[in-house]
C-alpha cells in the first residue's frame, strides 16, 4: 500500500510539472483571441467569413480606409485621391511604404493587385467586391488611376475595404496557396504562423506607417485560436487563457459581467433581420400578393417586444429595408407599429376574416422565429414552419419555393444601401416583389455619382417598399464582446474588431 501511495504521489507530481504554463496575456504582451469559425484561407480574396475581414484589416492595407466613427473615406496607402470623371479614380500614393517582407510598395503593386483581381480567371471568391473594376494604370511611381466599368458611386467603399494591396513580386511567385500559408501584407500586423482553420499568430509590424488613419499598433503579439464551442471559449476567458471573445449570447453575457472577471461591451451591427414576402406571386397564388395581407402581417408582429425580450443589447426595431447608418437609408417611411386589431381588420378587408395558412421558413434564431409564429397565430395566420440550413433555404428561395421567410443580411459591412436594398429589389433571384418602379429608382441611385440625386432616388424606392410592405424589416442585430479587464478595446458598428487600435490598460 505504501508503495502504491508513493507511486501515486510521484505520478501526480510528474503530471503537475508537465502542465504547460497558461498563456499570460498582458504579462507577455500577447493578446489571445478566440473565435468559433474555421477560416478557410488567410488570403483575403479567398475567404468569405467575417473573421476573414478581421484578418485582412490587421494584415493588409487598402488604398483608402473608412473611419469607423465618422464613416468617412480617408487615404491610407494613398496620400490623396480624386474622381477624374464618373468612371476614373486617381490615387497619389504615400512614399516609403514597405511590405512585411521588405518589398517596397509603389504603383506597380497597386496596378498589379487591381488588374489581377479584376480578371475573373483569378478566382476571387466574392466577385461583387471586384467586378466593378475595369483596369488600373500606372501614371508614375506613386500615381495610379483606377478605371470603373460604369459609374459606381459605392466604389470608394470597396476601395477602402475589399481590395487590399498585395506585393507584386511575392504574389506572382507564390500565388493564392502560398499567400494562404505565408501571407505578406503591409498592414499594422504581420502574420508569423498559420495553422489552417486553427490558429493564426501576428506580430506588430515595426515598419508600419507612423501617421496613418489606422494608428500605430501597441500590443506586441496577437494569437488567434479557433474554439468551436462557446462555453469552452468562456472557460478559457475566465481562466485567463484567452483575452478576447465575441458573439456572447445575452444571458451568458449577463452572467459573465456579474462575475467581475471580464468586461462586456455591446455594440449594434449592420446586420438586420427581415421577413421577405412573395408579393409577386412567384411561388403561386398566395394571399401575400394582396398588399393588405402583407400590411396585416406587419402590424401583427410585436417587433419591439421581441427586441426587448430576446434580441436585447443595442438592437433596435428597423422600419426601412436598410441599416439606418447606411448612405441613402431613408428612415421616414410608412411604419407598422404592433396593432393586432388593425391586422385582423386588414385581413378581413382582404377577404381572410378567419386568417389563412402559409409556409414560413427561417435559418437562424429559432427563438425569434417562434415568437413571430406566435404573434401571427394570434391574428389567425397559421404558419407552417420550416427550419433549414442557410444554403438549403437560400436555394429554396431562389428556386421559387418559399412564400415567406425570416432572413437576415449583413450588407458585408458596407455603409451604402446599394449593398442591401439594391441587392434585393432589382429583380435578382432573391427579389420576391419584382416592382419595376422600385428597380428603376434603385438602379438610378446605384449608377449616379451625384449624392443628392442618389439620396433622392433611394428615398423614393425605400418609401415605396415600405408603403407596399414588400418586406417587413425587423431589427438590427448586436454583438456582445467579452474581454479581459487588462484590455482596452472599442467595438464598432461595422462588426469588424480592430485589434490594431487595442491596447493594454
Amino acid at each position: 500500500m505504501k508503495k502504491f501511495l508513493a507511486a501515486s504521489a510521484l505520478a501526480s507530481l510528474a503530471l503537475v510539472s508537465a502542465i504547460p504554463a497558461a498563456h499570460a496575456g498582458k504579462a507577455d504582451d500577447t493578446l489571445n483571441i478566440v473565435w468559433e469559425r474555421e477560416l478557410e484561407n488567410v488570403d483575403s480574396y479567398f475567404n468569405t467569413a467575417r473573421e476573414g475581414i478581421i484578418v485582412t484589416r490587421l494584415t493588409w492595407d487598402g488604398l483608402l480606409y473608412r473611419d469607423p466613427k465618422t464613416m468617412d473615406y480617408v487615404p491610407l496607402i494613398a496620400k490623396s485621391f480624386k474622381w477624374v470623371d464618373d468612371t476614373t479614380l486617381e490615387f497619389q500614393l504615400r512614399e516609403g511604404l514597405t511590405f512585411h517582407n521588405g518589398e517596397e510598395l509603389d504603383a506597380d503593386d497597386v496596378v498589379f493587385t487591381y488588374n489581377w483581381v479584376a480578371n475573373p480567371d483569378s478566382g476571387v471568391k466574392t466577385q461583387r467586391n471586384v467586378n466593378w473594376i475595369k483596369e488600373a494604370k500606372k501614371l508614375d511611381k506613386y500615381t495610379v488611376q483606377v478605371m470603373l466599368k460604369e459609374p459606381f458611386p459605392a466604389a470608394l467603399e470597396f476601395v477602402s475595404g475589399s481590395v487590399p494591396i498585395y506585393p507584386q513580386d511575392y504574389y506572382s511567385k507564390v500565388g493564392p496557396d502560398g499567400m494562404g500559408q505565408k501571407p505578406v501584407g503591409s498592414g499594422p500586423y504581420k502574420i508569423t504562423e498559420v495553422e489552417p482553420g486553427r490558429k493564426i499568430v501576428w506580430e506588430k509590424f515595426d515598419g508600419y506607417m507612423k501617421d496613418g488613419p489606422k494608428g500605430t499598433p501597441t500590443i506586441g503579439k496577437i494569437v488567434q485560436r479557433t474554439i468551436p464551442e462557446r462555453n469552452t471559449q468562456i472557460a478559457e476567458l475566465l481562466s485567463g487563457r484567452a483575452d478576447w471573445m465575441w458573439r456572447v449570447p445575452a444571458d451568458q453575457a449577463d452572467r459573465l459581467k456579474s462575475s467581475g472577471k471580464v468586461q462586456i461591451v455591446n455594440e449594434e451591427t449592420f446586420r438586420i433581420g427581415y421577413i421577405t414576402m412573395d408579393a409577386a406571386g412567384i411561388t403561386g397564388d398566395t394571399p401575400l400578393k394582396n398588399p393588405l395581407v402583407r400590411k396585416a402581417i406587419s402590424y401583427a408582429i410585436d417587433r419591439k417586444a421581441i427586441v426587448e425580450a430576446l434580441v436585447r443589447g443595442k438592437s433596435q426595431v428597423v422600419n426601412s429595408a436598410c441599416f439606418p447608418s447606411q448612405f441613402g437609408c431613408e428612415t421616414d417611411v410608412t411604419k407598422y407599429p404592433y396593432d393586432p386589431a388593425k391586422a385582423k381588420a386588414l385581413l378581413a378587408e382582404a377577404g381572410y376574416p378567419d386568417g389563412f395558412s402559409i409556409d414560413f421558413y427561417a435559418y437562424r434564431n429559432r427563438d425569434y422565429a417562434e415568437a413571430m409564429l406566435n404573434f401571427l397565430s394570434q391574428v389567425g395566420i397559421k404558419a407552417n414552419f420550416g427550419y433549414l440550413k442557410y444554403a438549403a433555404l437560400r436555394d429554396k428561395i431562389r428556386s421559387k419555393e418559399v412564400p415567406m421567410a425570416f432572413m437576415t443580411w449583413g450588407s458585408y459591412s458596407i455603409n451604402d444601401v446599394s449593398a442591401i436594398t439594391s441587392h434585393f429589389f432589382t429583380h435578382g433571384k432573391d427579389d420576391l416583389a419584382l416592382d419595376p418602379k422600385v428597380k428603376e429608382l434603385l438602379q438610378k441611385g446605384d449608377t449616379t455619382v451625384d449624392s443628392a440625386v442618389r439620396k433622392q432616388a433611394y428615398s423614393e424606392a425605400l418609401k415605396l417598399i415600405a408603403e407596399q410592405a414588400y418586406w417587413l424589416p425587423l431589427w438590427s442585430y448586436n454583438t456582445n464582446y467579452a474581454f479581459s479587464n487588462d484590455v482596452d478595446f472599442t467595438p464598432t458598428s461595422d462588426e469588424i474588431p480592430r485589434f490594431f487600435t487595442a491596447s493594454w490598460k
Partner: protein
Amino acid sequence: MLVYTLKRLLLALLVAMTVSAITFSLTYLAGDPAIAMAGETASDADIEYIEKLYGFDRPIVVQYFEWALNAFQGDFGQSFYFRIPVADLLLERLPVSMTLGVSAISFAILLSIPLGVLAAMRPNSLLDRLALGISVVGQAMPSFWFALVLIVMFAVWYPVFPTTGSETWLHFVLPTIVLGYYATPAIMRLTRTGMLEVLGSDYIRTARAKGLPQHVILFKHALRNAVIPVVSLAAVQFGFMLGGSIVIESIFALHGAGYLAWESIGRNDLPVVQAVVLVFSLFYIVLTFLSDLLNAWLDPRIRVG
C-alpha cells in the same frame, strides 16, 4: 479461407462505395454547394461564378463518377473550402481522432472490465451496486454536460489540464475521460453478465474443485469466455468514437476528423465529406473484420464454424 477473405473484401468495397454514393446524393440534396461556398451574403453573380468554376452546373451523376474514379486512384481532390488537398487535411486531422479514439476505448476497457469482474464476483454486494451506479450515471449524463463540468473543475477552478488544442498528451486527458466514460456502462454490464453466466458454469466449478487459485479461475478461465461478446461491442464502440466524437472534439477544440466532417457538411464541402465518410466506413469495416478474427482466436468454436 483465402476465397472467404477475398469475398469479404469485395463486399467491404461495395459497402464503402454504396455509402459514398448515398452521402454524395444526400449532401447534394441538402442544398446547392455553390450557395454554401459563396457565403451568407453572396450575390447572384458570385453564386453563378462559383457554379461554373467548380463545375456544379454539370449533372450530379457525372460529378459523382468523376469523384469516384479519382478516389479509387487515391486522389480525393481539393477541399472547396480550404483550397488544399483533402488528403493533406485528413492526414492532419485523423491522428487527432485516432489518438482520442484509442485512448478513450482503452480508458473505457480499463475501467469497465475490472468493474464488471468485481461486480460479478459479489453480485448484489455494495461493490456491485457501486459499479451499477457508475454505469447508470455514465449512461444518463449527457457527454457535453460532463465535458463542461470537467472544464469548469479542472480548467477554471483548479487549472490542472489545458482545455483546448491537441499539442500534448495532457490535452487529451479530459476528452478521453468524457468520451471513454460514455462507453463504460455498456461494456461493464456486458462483462458483468458474461462473468456471472460463466462463473456459474460446470467447468468453473471443476476448476475450483481442483483448487486453482482465484485469480487463475477469474482471469484465465472465466474472463476469456465472458469477454467474447465484449470484443465485438468494443470494436463497434471504437468505430463510433472515431467518427462520433464530434461533440467532444468541438467542446475541447481538438479539430479532429469527426468535427471536420460535421463542419464540412454545413459548408457543403463535398470532397471532404465524401473522403471522411469513405475513410470512416473503411475503418468500421476493418474493425468489424478484426473483431471477428479476434473472436475466432478467443473462441475456437467460431474458427471451426
